[in-house]
């Protein structure tokens, strides 16, 4: 079975069943596809935060489904940028739309822990027993972000949004070490979630709202969705391959 043949048959399948790739994506995967360009080509323009942004084929839907106010969304954004900052390799979390990715995830199954065992009784347990909180991830993020704000006010008498990067790192480090008091969950657990979600947003398929323009993949040398590597798998040379998103086929 050649890879070309497969490529064709997959596209044919999509055509013959009358399903545009974008529809498949929108219908099946996530709800957060407001403004997603279902044709996978060209650009669409969206209003966002008082200025216009261009949403390319592999750009991201910019609408908030979980966060209710700009302050909290901005705290989340700045924290993720400290975790995965912009540098000479390319964009950081904000440039990759990671905060939108996290917002959309929190609004869905991920945020409500719908595939997890959430029955009580709840006991703290040993670290080897893992997550034992009655809180959902959405609740943990809400609380954690408020605690980040409280901590900034306590330490620097300013909003988390107004402190400098070094100060943010100090607060994030305190969370990471479990030094911040949280209810029903340790701050270390919240930090671990935040870090994991940041990486997920930087590197998941752009249809989830992050990894804008696939720049996360491009920085890392990951080609995204490719049909097959059977013709290159034995090559000694490193293969630079332009990434391809799932929504493109």
């Amino acid at each position, binding site marked *: *079975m050649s890879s070309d043949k*497969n490529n064709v048959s*997959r596209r044919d*399948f999509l055509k013959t069943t009358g399903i545009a790739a974008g529809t*498949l994506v929108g219908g*099946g*995967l996530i709800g957060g596809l407001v403004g997603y360009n279902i044709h996978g080509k060209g650009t669409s323009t969206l209003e966002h935060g008082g200025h216009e942004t261009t949403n390319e084929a592999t750009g991201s839907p910019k609408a908030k489904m979980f966060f209710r106010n700009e302050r909290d969304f901005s705290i989340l954004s700045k924290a993720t940028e*400290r*975790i*995965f*900052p912009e*540098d000479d*390799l390319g964009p*950081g979390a904000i440039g990759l739309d990671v905060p939108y990715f996290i917002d959309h995830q929190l609004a869905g*199954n*991920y945020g409500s*822990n*719908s*595939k*997890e*065992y*959430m*029955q009580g*009784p709840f*006991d703290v*347990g*040993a*670290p*080897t*027993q*893992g*997550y034992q909180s009655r809180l959902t991830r959405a609740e943990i993020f809400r609380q954690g972000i408020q605690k980040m704000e409280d901590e900034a006010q306590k330490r620097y008498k300013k909003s988390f949004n107004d402190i400098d990067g070094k100060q943010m*790192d100090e607060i994030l480090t305190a969370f*990471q070490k479990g030094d911040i008091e949280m209810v029903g969950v340790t701050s270390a657990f919240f930090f671990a979630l935040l*870090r994991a979600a940041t990486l*997920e947003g*930087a*590197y*998941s*398929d752009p249809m*989830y709202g992050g990894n804008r323009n696939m720049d996360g*993949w491009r920085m*890392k*040398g*990951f*080609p*995204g*969705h*490719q*049909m*097959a*590597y*059977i013709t*290159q*798998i*034995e*090559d000694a040379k*490193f*293969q630079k391959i332009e990434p391809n998103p*799932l929504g493109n086929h």
Partner: protein
Amino acid sequence: MAKTLPSVDVVTVGVGWTGGIVAAECAKAGLKVVGLERGQKRGTEDYLNVHDEYRYAIRYDLMQNLSKETVSFRNDRNMKALPMRQLGSFLLGEGLGGSGTHWNGMTYRFLPYDFQIKTLTDKRYGPNKLGPDYLIQDWGLTYDQLEPYFDKFEKTAGISGDDKNKFSGKRSNPYPTPPMKKTPMLAQFEKAAANLKLTPYMVPSANVSEVYKNPDGETINACQYCGFCERFGCEYGAKSSAEITVVPTALKTGNFDLRFNSNVVEILKQGNKATGVRYIDTVSGEEFIQPANAVVLTSYVFNNAKLLMVSDIGERYDPTTGKGTLGRNYCYQILPGAAGFFEEQYNTFMGAGSLGMCIDDYNGDNFDHSDLDFIHGGNIALTQTGTRPIGSNPTPPDTPTWGPEFKKQSIYYYTRSFGIGAQGASMPHKQNYLSLDPTYKDAYGLPLMQLTYNFTGQDRALHKYISARAADIMKEMGAKTIVPNAEITDYNIVPYQTTHNTGGTVMSLTPEQGVVNNYLQHWDVDNLFAVSAGNFAHNSGYNPTGTLGALAYRCAEGVIKYSQSGGSLV
């Protein structure tokens, strides 16, 4: 009130590899088989958009929905067991094909030593090598007896491999398809291993290397090395699994009735015969009784043991008295290894679930343990399964876990690092076992399976020794920085390790030593069979499914024999 359905010859609980094999063989033999699967129908056509790391590898789209059922866990009896609320340490299957849908496909045969571990260890090292807390025992079936069944499973699945492993038990036939392609990384491992006088060979693979038609007439396609294999279904139908092999075979006979959304909650029994099973239609909520002449549990390690316990069949293991066999000998695996950081770049994102080279020089009793404080060992492998960017952020030691340095290093080393890993054999210990949880319940009101498990002294010693061997090979491969795996402490259910859970429903030569005989027929109830890696009396240094597939064929033969002759088969 449960509705009673017309009786059939055989009912299987679960339709993964084991359920599929039993169904296919029995249906081919003319028996009427019902397969009850709690999950949904799925197949190659559903994997069209499967190259999605986030959905499938990170959020576990194909795996068990824990909101309905999970296990509870504690390290020892002094702790309160708590539910595994999120998937982690192992990824349980659900839906047609079970976890054989999202497996890697590495398909080994356990070593001849494994099946006679007690006899052979005592013979070489004297009777007290491990001490009385370890419950090692012979399996009640030798490698040579199981060989024809290994051969049959490999032919059904079209396993690709070379025949270069000098430690392997005798093979009656070569692998049905040639080995997978050898990548530069693999060739580098091969050279290093050969320099160290070791015996490298290609990992036997169910990612089939060329289009193959199996003896049942099912076609498996050729692997495309797409890099989205383990934790994913194969969009090409190139990764051997129940839904592209044995399930279609069973369906073609016209003797197989496959029912989805059917969660079995009880094995029904009258005297010392099973009369059928009770199950719940998870969509309508209706309850059904499916009578059958033979009941076969094929619902994975945990649910096979759980169904026996909740149905009160067999004596449960009591760690205080040592009495009872049901739940005893639960084993897992330990993961020694070493990471290497290189200057050259590798195509790490390409690969296949079973693409790799390995050695058995430090597995089983292939090396002398006289001066070592452990037995057995592990298969040491370099695999190129296709690393993906969310899950793979390797950094050299002392790199921060976030911030600018983390970003820079994790991106740089994404294509410049890989690991040599081993699957360390796990020996059964008195204090490691399965039982019913007294507190937590599943969605159907049944107790959760409770897991009491910790790593033992044997595990720690083995882990340290094998990690050092992996580091030796990594050094010979020329890594710039080598990081042997940190010594193990307590077993932790959070990080993924392997879905190689074993024990709990051990097979044995005598009724005192196990739950089922070597046809996987229950010692107390002769029309009840239980097949899973739960039958393993200990866990070896390999992935389980090759041996499990062989046992499933053995079990099918037992069910067919039973249907003709009745009674105990041994």
